[in-house]
């Protein structure tokens, strides 16, 4: 079961002599043999049985620097008779040894049991024609079944009822993707209903490509579908997970009539428990041009801040309640006030988050 001491002793003597003659060189090879010449220090777990297990020795406390090699005759080590039992390996500190300058080439590995061999101990079988046939049989290209590389997900981040200072209604925000790890087709939609009619809604269709572990670049189109003033936009944006796990997206839009707009949204998930999750979000929209017809001034148009508390009954289904505040800025606010709409609104919301 184990190597017998009588067989290994001459070898380990040779090896130990190598330790003495070339303390730096033999370092990596000598370890195996310490177990026979010294009393092993009490070993940490596990306990080897029934023979000493060399790997369990704790060499970490060894300090080779305290070994006195100067009194040894390095040039002519005697083949036998060196008493290693008086050596105190327990204070060896290998860490001070410079391994970078080791030159193993001068070691005589042939004299060691574990030295390299030119030919393998077990000969490599000679290959026959039958071996070749068995090794490379004709294989149908389709024989290997692969798990699908194309996947998809539809997340309805919020589908909710809101109750504001100036009315009630419904709102949604959803996104979905289909594709590979790198290339995905995205759909995004956001919308709001009030008093039984859809006030605002949009649908985006985008091609997204991962450009880094955490960021996708998206390019595509957005279709506004507000009943009165729908228009089509070209979209270019990024989307991903910012440091500290902020779910972030920023998109620039170039619309009909030369308008340039932008939307930035940041979401975070604060875990109260692993199922009760507080989700703050901030969304801001900007326009480059003043467009009274659309009720948009130039600069910052709107900021929406929300705080939703959801409970994940399952990962796929989580109802939530929350509060959302929206404020219009600058000319945008003025245009809306002129139209009889408030420039700010605070709403209570209740809804669900589901994904498929």
């Amino acid at each position, binding site marked *: *079961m184990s190597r017998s001491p009588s067989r290994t002793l001459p070898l380990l003597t040779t090896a130990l002599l190598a330790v003495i003659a070339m303390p730096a060189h033999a*370092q*990596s*090879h000598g*370890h*195996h043999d310490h177990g026979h010449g010294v009393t092993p220090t009490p070993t940490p*777990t*596990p*306990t*080897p*049985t029934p023979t000493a*297990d*060399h*790997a*369990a020795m704790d060499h970490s406390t060894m300090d080779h620097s305290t070994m006195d090699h100067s009194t040894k005759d390095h040039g002519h080590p005697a083949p036998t008779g060196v008493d290693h039992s008086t050596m105190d390996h327990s204070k060896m500190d*290998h860490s001070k*040894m410079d*391994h970078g300058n080791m030159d193993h080439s001068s070691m005589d590995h042939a004299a060691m049991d*574990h030295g*390299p*061999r030119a*030919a*393998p*101990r077990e000969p*490599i079988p000679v*290959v026959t024609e039958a*071996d*070749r046939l*068995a*090794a*490379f*049989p004709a*294989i149908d290209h389709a*024989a*290997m*079944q*692969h*798990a*699908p*590389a194309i996947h*998809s*997900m539809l997340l309805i981040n919020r589908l909710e009822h809101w109750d504001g200072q100036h009315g009630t209604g419904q709102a949604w925000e959803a996104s979905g993707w289909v594709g590979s*790890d*790198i290339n995905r087709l995205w759909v995004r939609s956001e919308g709001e209903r009030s008093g039984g009619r859809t006030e605002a809604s949009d649908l985006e269709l985008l091609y997204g490509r*991962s450009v*880094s*572990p955490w960021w996708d670049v998206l390019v595509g189109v957005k279709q506004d579908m507000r009943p009165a003033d729908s228009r089509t936009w070209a979209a270019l944006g990024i989307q991903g*997970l910012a*440091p*500290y*796990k902020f779910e972030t997206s920023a998109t620039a839009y170039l619309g009909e009539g030369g308008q340039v707009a932008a939307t930035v949204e940041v979401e975070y998930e604060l*875990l*109260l*428990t*692993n*199922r009760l999750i507080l989700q703050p979000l901030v969304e801001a929209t900007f326009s480059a041009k003043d467009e009274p017809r659309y009720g948009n001034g130039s600069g910052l148009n709107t900021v929406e801040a929300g705080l939703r508390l959801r409970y994940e*009954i399952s*990962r*796929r289904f989580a109802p939530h309640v929350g509060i959302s505040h929206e404020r219009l800025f600058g000319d945008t606010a003025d245009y809306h006030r002129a139209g009889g709409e408030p420039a700010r609104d605070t709403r209570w919301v209740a809804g669900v988050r589901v*994904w498929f």
Partner: protein
Amino acid sequence: MSFPTFPGTGAPPMPSRRLFVQGVGAGGVVASLAAAGLSPRAFAAAGPTLAGAPQVLSGPQAQLTIGESLANFTGRTRPAITVNGSLPAPILRWREGDTVTVRVANALQAHPTSIHWHGILLPSNMDGVPGLSFNGIAPGEAYQYRFTLKQSGTYWYHSHSLFQEQAGLYGALIIDPLAPAPYHFDREHVILLSDWTDMDPGALFRRMKKLAEHDNYYKRTLPDFLRDVRKDGWAAATADRGMWGRMRMTPTDISDINAHTYTYLLNGTAPAGNWTGLFRSGEKVLLRFINGASMTYFDVRIPGLKMTVVAADGQYIHPVSIEEFRISPAETFDVIVEPSGQDAYTIFCQDMGRTGFAAGTLAVRHGLQAPVPARDPRPLLTMGDMGHDMGHGHAMPAHDMAAMHGATMDHSAHGMHGGSGTSSGTAPRHPASETGNPRVDMQSMATAPKLDDPGIGLRDNGRQVLTYGAMHSLFEDPDGREPGREVELHLTGHMEKFSWSFDGTPFASAEPLRLNYGERMRIVLVNDTMMQHPIHLHGVWSDLENADGQFQLRKHTIDMPPGTRRSYRVRADALGRWAYHCHLLYHMEAGMMREVRIEE
């Protein structure tokens, strides 16, 4: 994906909050779908009929029929894939030196199948990997495997077709040695561990691609943060959260799939079923542990008993006495126990994430049960675990991980930190294919073999825990040559995308790794992920090296904890095309696989 017979998405209509730990007592295969067209409901109504003790097929001729059956491990009757109607598949008992002939018939309705003999040296066309070794076995057809056994020990066999292994197609394979074993035992039991899900495994894979963190209900919360502030101070707590936050990772990601999805089985029996192996007091009992799970690491102990490990992956080692061992998917350990003084002992196998367990009993007669221990506290990954600790302890370094992350890092500045060469943390040189790669969410900064590390959740637990460093083959390097060359591969992945690969290149777009017939070479693996990966090379042995680069342990599956760099020698003496992959089934299917081609 695997079975058209699964209804809908395969998501069980029960809340996922439920932990499927105990399972049902009288669980198992309830019926074989011998006749097509019968609905699962009809079989469920017929009531459970236990398959009983595992079938043992001895002798050099075997007939295996792969079919669909109904199984009930959780209280719900679900489709399973079985061999000869049995889950696990029958124990195959062979003899070293024999030439075995196995006829495998595919009785599945619509899916090709295969059987791979894990860890067995054989010609490539007998290895059972569709697309590399053969064309697979089409429905209604059979394939005749025939090979000569050049080894002995505890092995296993399983499907290599999509997710069939997860659905139940795995079994023990025992090869008795020609020469007597170098240890004595009076009786033996096979202990085959596995993980079962009621879901269609294909649907589970799709779920992982949508929301990989689905089962991680252990993320640190606001109350956890406040507790850490009280304990460690505001600065330390925010520094810690900041580090993880900048990496966009969570230290509770111990396993991708846990007991929120799985029921853990011991010999095809859920804990409530209390699988029992008999002994007589004072006997030496050989337990052949096999981890046939698709995604689960088990930490195994038998309270009250010391275990002497005598073989790893079927190969004899110098005996090591321990109290607990971690077994990665696909590994096998043979241990000897000497139960006496108690009538019953619990074989307790908790998953690495401490969410559930498989369990059985060693007893002097049936019907007994010893106390089942509580699961250990859930471990947290540290930066040290993940190879991000440039110091030597597991203390959190104060530097900014985000700044160290990515291509701009100057590895040479980190250098080596004293100690003896590779046994301390060294800064790996990362392959160029990882740089800027969207599939690579992390790179290790300081890796080490960590052969003496019991691993996360097992350190300082008061028990003697097996390590790779404690295991030494009973024989010297069977080849003996120094490796003529070295190939370094990095294990890479993206947690959120559930994308897994070698060097950032998934299997579908990777070139084969070519070895020259007859050469002795070295493979160096570096784990650049925060997960643990059991890496299996078909066709040839993986001869693990110690920290000094010397032969130490012959294995067929090398476990790679996060933050490790481990090397092993390969003797390319088997011509052909071989699979080389992570043995976490869903990692393999997500791309952590290569073809190794050994050519003249």
